[in-house]
């Protein structure tokens, strides 16, 4: 269709290329039908929905505590942020106040998850530029983050970490040790990676000026997170609406200038350094206290109590069966996900499952700008732009 219209306009013959859904550079599965003039992209049209999994419908049929594992699979590169965003949303609805220690523990985990996510994005950007080796160096550090997650919750990627009200268990000695090791190891490895890639002129030439964006346009397209900050606007949910005691930590908001791929890359890099510093601060200031809020109606009692105490047994059954009273109401809570503002709009009618749960998925909203961003550039740029936007298929299609 497009081809024929354009043909009429210019009298030239354009070429149509189908970029995706199984193209190697589309990591997940995005389809873009490109109308090309040689290597130049004249028009692009994105198709999404190739892994639409009906999260929102699924969430209407699952009790609150079973939704945590579903949120894992939204942005699977940084599952803990989703988990905790969801838990905080429910806590907001229930009016649960979490202890400071829980907040700090959450901050540590979320920042680790952010590093894990940005590591993927930045190293894959280099891979798409053709430099594979940096990816393998930095991925070893990601394995370390996996180990930390595994020692807390027992899984590497889809963590299902934390519970409504706090954590399922306290961090063990081993976990603290792993985190400390990570804090000393990661900066070294990351510095090495940065000196391998950051100032390499080939890499800079490839990324500077590809997929630029103005802040006004970005805002209009609903960009958030690093992609918005790369354009120069310092919107960060952690600062604007601090959750989980983020106001206690001192960190800057890295911003870019032109909103091109290099800006996005550098903003993510700087955010990783910030995350390291936040984790360090949280470790230093870690308060004493319980690792979960005292809410017997929502937080499972310890197993010993279930056998011995009637009250605990009743709560146990009620929580598992999803029969605890949930207030009627609606609540929107957002966290700074690795790719932007990850929002949860939860409507409860007091039943065992949410009446409606809508996820504000930053990738989904940002990705609609992609087709416009690559028009007029060349095929190689389109691929770089896609990588640097860090679109995660799970989050895109929900």
């Amino acid at each position, binding site marked *: 269709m497009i081809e024929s219209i354009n043909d009429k306009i210019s009298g030239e013959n354009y070429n149509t290329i189908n970029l995706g859904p199984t193209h190697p550079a589309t990591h997940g599965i995005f389809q873009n039908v490109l109308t090309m003039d040689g290597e130049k992209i004249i028009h692009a049209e994105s198709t999404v929905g190739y*892994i639409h999994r009906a999260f929102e419908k699924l969430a209407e049929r699952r009790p609150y505590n079973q939704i945590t594992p579903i949120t894992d699979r939204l942005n699977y590169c940084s599952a803990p942020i989703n988990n905790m965003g969801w838990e905080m949303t429910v806590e907001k609805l229930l009016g649960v106040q979490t202890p400071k220690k829980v907040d700090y523990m959450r901050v540590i985990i979320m920042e680790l998850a952010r590093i894990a996510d940005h590591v993927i994005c930045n190293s894959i950007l280099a891979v798409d530029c053709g430099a594979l080796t940096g990816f393998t160096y930095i991925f070893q550090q990601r394995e370390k983050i996996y180990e930390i997650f595994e020692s807390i919750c027992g899984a590497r990627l889809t963590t299902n970490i934390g519970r409504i009200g706090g954590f399922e268990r306290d961090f063990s000695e081993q976990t603290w040790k792993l985190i400390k090791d990570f804090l000393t190891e990661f900066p070294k490895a990351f510095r090495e990676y940065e000196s391998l890639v950051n100032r390499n002129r080939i890499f800079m030439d490839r990324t500077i000026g590809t997929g630029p964006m103005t802040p006004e346009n970005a805002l209009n397209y609903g960009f958030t997170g690093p992609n918005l900050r790369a354009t120069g606007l310092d919107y960060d949910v952690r600062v604007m609406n601090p959750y989980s005691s983020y106001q206690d930590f001192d960190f800057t908001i890295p911003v870019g200038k032109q909103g091109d791929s290099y800006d996005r890359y550098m903003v993510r890099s700087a955010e990783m350094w910030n995350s390291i510093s936040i984790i360090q601060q949280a470790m230093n200031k870690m308060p004493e206290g319980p690792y979960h809020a005292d809410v017997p109606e929502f937080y499972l009692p310890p197993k010993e109590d279930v056998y011995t105490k009637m009250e605990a047994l009743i709560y146990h059954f009620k929580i598992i069966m999803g029969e605890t009273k949930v207030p009627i109401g609606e609540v929107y809570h957002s966290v700074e996900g690795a790719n932007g503002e990850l929002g949860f709009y939860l409507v409860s009618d007091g039943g065992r499952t949410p009446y409606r749960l809508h996820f504000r998925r930053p990738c989904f909203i940002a990705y609609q700008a992609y087709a416009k961003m690559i028009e007029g550039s060349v095929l190689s740029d389109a691929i770089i732009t896609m990588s640097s936007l860090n679109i995660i*298929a799970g989050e895109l299609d929900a």
Partner: protein
Amino acid sequence: MGVDTKVTIVAAPEGHSEAGFFATSLDKAVGLARKNSIWPLPFATSCCGIEFMATMASNYDMARFGAERLSFSPRQADLLMVMGTISKKMGPVVKQVYLQMAEPRWVIAVGACASSGGIFDTYSVLQGIDKVVPVDVYVPGCPPRPEQIIDGLMRIQDLIGNESLRRRNSPEYKALLASYGIE
């Protein structure tokens, strides 16, 4: 689609005397070569794809099995690794990719979603890719650990090593493909 899921005879090398499944010595030699040179086509759609990256990266290094040359062109691939949720919209694409692959070809379903739909028993998700293409090895887990993915690869290697060259021309195999509507 709509194929009875119980048709999974690909994997079962039943004793079939002549020109059948059992490998002869030439078959063995070729099998040995093939199994050490599996070029996977990663059809990574979601979470499992990230674990696949971990499998390819330094810590687990799938290259040790001779399987590190990812060939994104289906023509050159030996092993289709489907990793992640396959929605009904994606189903035909998987089948298309499978059709484009050159014989001999194998399929691994990595992870709960690809194998059975996993947690996503929903209107939009294909309940296991064996509804559109024949699957040789299933890898459970959501997502599977790299160890499990390597395990799956080694199972495929076993399968390849013990397979007759002519199995692909055997009536059983043709019947299997026919049951998926593949000529």
